[in-house]
C-alpha cells in the first residue's frame, strides 16, 4: 500500500481481520475433526449441505437467522450506548406471548391488519420489558445485566401462568395452542420459493430493522448521542447529553427489537410457546452481536453465519457419523475462533508495523513519530 515517496504504515482493514478470523475458525474446527479422526473436508461439506443444499434448507436457514438478526441487533444497539442487554430471551417471550394471544383471539381480524397488530403489539410488549431495565438503570442505577436477567425469569414465570389461563392447548397443558398457519407470519409469498420451510415475513422485518437501526446509529442525532453515551458516559453528560434519557430510550428500542424477534419466532418459525422454556436465541444474540462487531450490517451476516452452522449441525451428525455432542463442540470451536477477531487485528497490525519499520529503515527516512500508534 505504502507508496515509495509517502511512507504510511498500513493498518489491518476490517475485511482482512474478519477473513482471517473466519478462516481461523474453520481451520480450528478442521483441526478438531482431524483429532477425532474425521475427514474435515467431508465434514465441512456436510455442514454446507445441511444448511444450503436445497430450497427447504435454505428457507429454514433464513428462518432461523431471522430471530438471530433481531436479537443480535437488540444486543448490538444497546452495546453501542454501553449497555449490555442480556434480557433478549425475556423480551422475546413477552413479545411472542402477546402475539400468540392475538393469534388465539383475533382470528376474525382481516389478515393485513392482523399482521400489523401482532407485529406492533409484540414490539410494544418487548419495548416495555426493555424499558423497565432502562428505567431501573437510569433512575436507581440498577445494573441492566441484573435487571434484564431477572426480567427473563419474570417473563418466563408470568407466561407460565398466562399460557394455561388464556391460550392453552386443550390436549397438552404445557404449551400454547398451535397458531394456525393463516394466523402466523408464514406466507405463501415466501414459501413458494422455499417449499416446506418455515420462512416467514420475519426476514423482511429483520432486514428493515437492520436498515432502520443502521440509519438511527449513523445518521441521526439520537444515534450520535447514544454512541457518545456509550463511549464515555461522563463526557457525554458534560457535553449536555441527557444520559439517563438516552439509557431508557436505548433499552426500550433494544426491547422492541427483541420483542419483534419473539413475534417472528413464536408466530413464524415456531407456532407454539412451551411453559418454562427460555428461548436460547436471547443468548445466542449476544454472540451474534459481538461477532458482528455490534454493527447492524455485521450482525445481519453474523446471524446468517450462525444460522448456517446451526442448520448444518444435524447434517454433520447424520452424514459424517459425528455424535451430536461432538458436532456441537465443532460448531462451538468455529464460533469461538471466529470471535477472536481482535487478536487478528493486533496480529496483523504488529506484522504491518514490523514491515513498516523495515521499510523506513531501508528507505532511511524517518516516519512521523506520534501518528504510528492508534
Amino acid at each position, binding site marked *: 500500500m505504502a507508496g515509495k515517496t509517502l511512507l504510511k504504515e498500513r493498518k489491518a*482493514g*476490517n*475485511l482482512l*481481520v*474478519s*477473513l482471517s*478470523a*473466519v478462516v481461523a475458525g474453520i481451520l480450528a474446527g478442521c483441526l478438531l475433526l482431524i483429532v477425532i479422526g474425521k475427514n474435515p473436508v*467431508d465434514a465441512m*461439506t456436510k*455442514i*454446507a*449441505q*445441511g*444448511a*444450503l*443444499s*436445497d430450497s427447504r*434448507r435454505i428457507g*429454514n436457514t433464513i428462518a*432461523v437467522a431471522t430471530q438471530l438478526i433481531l436479537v443480535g441487533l437488540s444486543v448490538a444497539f444497546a452495546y453501542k450506548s454501553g449497555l449490555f442487554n442480556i434480557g433478549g430471551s425475556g423480551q422475546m417471550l413477552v413479545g411472542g406471548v402477546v402475539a400468540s394471544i392475538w393469534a388465539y383471539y383475533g382470528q376474525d381480524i382481516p389478515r393485513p391488519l392482523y399482521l400489523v397488530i401482532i407485529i406492533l403489539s409484540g414490539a410494544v410488549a418487548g419495548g416495555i420489558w426493555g424499558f423497565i431495565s432502562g428505567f431501573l438503570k437510569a433512575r436507581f442505577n440498577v445494573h441492566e445485566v441484573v435487571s434484564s436477567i431477572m426480567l427473563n425469569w419474570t417473563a418466563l414465570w408470568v407466561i*407460565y401462568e398466562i399460557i394455561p389461563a388464556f391460550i392453552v392447548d386443550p*390436549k*397438552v*397443558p*404445557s404449551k400454547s395452542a*398451535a397458531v394456525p398457519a393463516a394466523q402466523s407470519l408464514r406466507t405463501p409469498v415466501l414459501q413458494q420459493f422455499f*417449499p*416446506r420451510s*418455515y420462512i416467514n415475513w420475519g426476514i423482511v422485518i429483520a432486514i428493515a430493522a437492520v436498515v432502520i437501526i443502521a440509519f438511527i446509529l449513523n445518521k441521526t442525532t439520537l444515534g450520535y448521542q447514544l454512541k457518545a453515551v456509550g463511549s464515555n458516559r461522563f463526557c457525554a453528560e458534560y457535553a449536555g447529553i441527557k444520559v439517563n434519557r438516552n439509557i431508557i430510550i436505548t433499552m426500550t428500542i433494544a426491547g422492541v427489537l427483541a420483542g419483534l424477534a419473539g413475534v417472528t419466532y413464536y408466530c413464524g*418459525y*415456531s*407456532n*407454539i410457546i412451551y411453559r*418454562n*422454556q427460555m428461548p*436460547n436465541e436471547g443468548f445466542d444474540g449476544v454472540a451474534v452481536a459481538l*461477532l*458482528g*462487531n455490534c*454493527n447492524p*450490517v*455485521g450482525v445481519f*451476516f453474523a446471524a*446468517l*453465519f450462525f444460522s*448456517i452452522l446451526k*442448520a448444518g*449441525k*444435524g*447434517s454433520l*451428525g*447424520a*452424514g459424517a*457419523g459425528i*455424535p*451430536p*455432542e461432538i458436532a*456441537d463442540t465443532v460448531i462451538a470451536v468455529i464460533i469461538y475462533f471466529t470471535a477472536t*477477531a481482535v487478536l487478528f487485528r493486533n496480529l496483523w497490525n504488529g506484522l504491518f508495523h514490523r514491515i513498516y519499520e523495515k521499510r523506513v529503515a531501508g528507505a532511511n527516512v524517518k516516519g512521523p513519530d506520534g501518528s504510528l500508534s492508534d
Partner: protein
Amino acid sequence: MKKSLAIIMMLLAVFCVFSLASCGGKEETTSTAAATTTAASTTTTATTTAAAPAAEKEESDGVATSGAALKVGMVTDSGTIDDRSFNQGTWEGVKKAADELGLESTYLRPNGTTTGDYTSAIYDLYDQGYRFIACPGYLFEEAILEVQDACPDLALVIFDSNLGDNCGANTVSVSWKEQESGFLAGVATAVELVDGSVGFVGGIEIPAVQKFNWGFQQGVAFANENYGTTVEMDPSNFVYSGSFADLALGGQLAITMYDKGVDAIFAAAGGTGVGVINEAKSRRLAGEDVWAIGVDVDQYSVGDMGNGESCILTSAMKYVDKAAYDLVYAAYNGEFPGGTNELLGASTSDLGIPEENPNLSAETMEIVAEVEQMIIAGDIVVQDTADGLIP
C-alpha cells in the same frame, strides 16, 4: 462494519463453493417433487462421501425400508441422550437392535424443541439415507405429521403419542397405559412403607406424566383398602415442576417434601426427577429413611449411593427400549406396522416395575405380582383420568 460484512461474504462464499461443489449436477426441482429432491441430494451424498455404502443408491430409488441397507436413526427430545430416562431408553432399544442386525445407527439432537427444529433433524437423517427414525415424545407430533407425507418411504415411530386417524401409512405411534405402571408402583410403595406419606414430582403436565401420577395414587389407595396399609397422600405433595431438565428444582422440591415428612417421592420428571433422587440419596446416606421411586426405566442405578445400595424403592417402567427394539426388527424384516396406533399395557408385558427390586421385600413382590395379574385379567381397571384424584 466492513469487517463483519467481510466475514460473512467470505463465509457465504466458502459455503457456496462447498455446496456447489457437492451439489454439482443436481437438478433444480419444484415444490411438489419432494422425493426427487431428496433422492438427488442423497445420491449426491453418496458420490461425495467416499466411504458411503453403495446401498444408499438403492434406497434413494424408492422403497427399501427393510434389509441390511436399512439405516436406523433417532431424534432426541428435549434433554440429553443420557437422561437415564426416555431418550436413553429409546436409544438403547434402537442401538441394540441395530447392533444385532449390523445396521448403521445414529441419533441427532435438534437445536431446540420447535417443530422446525424437529423436522430439520428428521430430514437431516432422511437425506443421509436413514429410513427408520424413532422420535421419543409427544412434542414430535406436529413434525411427524408434516414429514410422514413428504417422505413416504421413511418408517417413522413416535412414542408417547396417539396420532389416531392422522397416523400416516408409514408411521407408528406408540403410547402406554402409564396408569397401570404407576398403579403397580403405588401398590409396591404402599405395601412396603405400610404407613407414612408419599409425594409426587412430575415434569410437565402432559398425559403420560399425569397418567403415571393418577395410577400411582390409585395404587396407593388400593393398597390402603385391600392390604391394610395407611399411607397418606397430601395434595400439597403432588406437584408438577414444569420441567424435565431442572435438576436443582427437583432437589428443592424434594427437600421441601422430605422436610414435611414425606417418606417416598415418585419422581416422574426426567432430569428434574434425578434431582429428587439425588436428594433422597444424600438423605439416606445421612441416615434418614426416605425413598424415591423412579420412572420410565429401572432407575435403581441412578439412586446408587456408592455403597452397593440404592435409594430407589422401585421404578414405574414402560419398556420403551423393548418397543423401539421390536420396531427396528419389524422394519428390518419388512413388517413395519405402519399406520397403526399401538397402546401398550400390562397385558402385553410392556410396562411394570422391575423384576429385581432389592429394596422391596419378597412379600411385597408377591402382592405386586398378584395385583398385576388382576390388571391383566381385567379385574382391576385403572382409570386414566383425574376423576376423584389429586389432579
